[in-house]
């Protein structure tokens, strides 16, 4: 295995974890009826799922700071799970769109925003953060983001 700069990955893990933690907590609080502006319908279990993903990212921070490769796995699995949830939600979005396009009764009042849950836009933010980190890192050998992409 080539020499990878694992220590360079901890700010990424921390940032992604913070994103999911804040998103999950706000969703959870909003789900229990507290008056905070949050663009999602009440769904405490989905909110807890986001907090678990945050915990996976956070678990990678310490080993990555120590340059330990074990931390890489937490970021990889965190991104993988977040990506799976994003992908599944996109499939749900497209099936809802199909129902709306066919004019089925239950979908007449459907709009895309109702299916765009935090699972979708949080992952898009993660992709954005990753893209920025990737651009900053460049194409050097052993780069953390390059390794995360399987390079």
């Amino acid at each position, binding site marked *: 295995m080539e020499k990878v700069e694992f220590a360079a990955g901890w700010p990424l893990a921390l940032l992604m974890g913070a994103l999911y933690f804040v998103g999950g907590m706000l969703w959870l609080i909003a789900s229990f009826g507290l008056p905070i502006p949050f663009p999602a319908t009440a769904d405490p279990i989905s909110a807890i799922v986001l907090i678990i993903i945050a915990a996976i990212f956070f678990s990678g921070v310490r080993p990555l700071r120590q340059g330990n490769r074990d931390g890489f796995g937490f970021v990889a699995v965190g991104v993988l799970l977040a990506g799976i949830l994003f992908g599944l939600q996109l499939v*749900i979005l497209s*099936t809802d769109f199909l129902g709306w396009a*066919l004019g089925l009764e239950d979908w007449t009042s459907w709009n895309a925003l109702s299916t765009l849950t935090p699972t979708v836009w949080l992952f898009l933010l993660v992709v954005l953060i990753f893209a920025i980190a990737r651009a900053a890192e460049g194409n050097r050998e052993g780069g953390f983001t390059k390794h995360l992409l399987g390079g």
Partner: protein
Amino acid sequence: MYEPGEEKWMLSDIMDSVFLHRYLGLPIFLVIMWAMFHFTFTASLVFMAMIEEAFSWFGGLTSQIPIPWLASLLTDGVIGGVGFIMVFLPPILLMYLSISVLEDTGYLARAAFVMDKVMVRIGLHGKSFIPLLLGFGCSVPAIMAARTVDGESNRLATILVTPLMSCAARLPVYVLIAGVFFPDFAGTMVFVMYILGIVMAVAMALLFKGTILREEASPLIMELPTYQRPTLHGSFRHAWDRGFLFLRKAGTYLLAGAIMLWVLANTGPTGFGVAADESFIAMIGNLGAPLFALHGFPWQIVSALIFGLLAKEIVVESLGIIYSVQGEAAIGTMLAMSLSPLSALALMVFVLLYTPCIAAVGTIRSETGSWKWAGFSVLYQVLLAYLISLFIVLIGGLFLA
């Protein structure tokens, strides 16, 4: 399964350090399971509506047949029964697809490892998790898979608790009831049912291992395959193979069951063509109804539960026939009129916990070589389902009061 090459091995190893993590392994497993059920329920809704529209169109045609009994048999019996159960083909296919993907990636084997600690703590063998997991698909092969479990009492305990895992045949009941009574978090309710099944299986295993089936636990030794990228063809093929079994069942046993139920729902002591509440099926339902008075289940539900002993799909099938309406929306309306949300939740729990089907009982008989264990399995599950669902109604009623 293992492909040589250090790079691949290392990646698999690194992934395992997270998926099999001491503290995160179980939450990750639960997240994956939740994602599976949420996706299964939500993504299938459109396809269910499309199938329902198609059958309601067929129903419109068959109801115009000039021979009344034939029109009723085809419309209320075949389309109202088998047609209605076919509406649930999409969630069943999607769930099998999700399980196939998890299986093909190599994660299911990890899930057994993640659950090993829990299994050992309740006195079961780590390998017991495999039959329990297979129980999410169908109880019959799951009970057979208990052959791999080491130790006679471990094996027996696994066989006895495996039917508590929620099989695919129960899914239509959850989807129907959760969609009617808990539409805003239906996917989560279905997930809760599956988790409750696991919790009850654990609780009963603890009870059995602590009382009638004492034996020391043996360690789990298992080879883990490396992670694989699932292929679209492979996963769809696995899902279709399993889904086809459901279609075959619908075209044979469930069709026969629908015709039998239609006859019982249309004949009574006074002859053919009686009203549903004067039919033989009402007599059967009314026999058991007093036992479920506290649960708030009317005779129609009790009849459906009694016939559901044959196969769980029949519960939903018989509701269509007994209420003599077609389509999920129409049956949903009838259910909403005859059940409170609390009773509906109790019904979901009852369906989750009582004997899955007659085939599962036969398999327990052949695997244990004894009618005693098969009878015990039926008895304890019916009693457990009865008590837990009653508990929900009583405790829930206290909270609501």
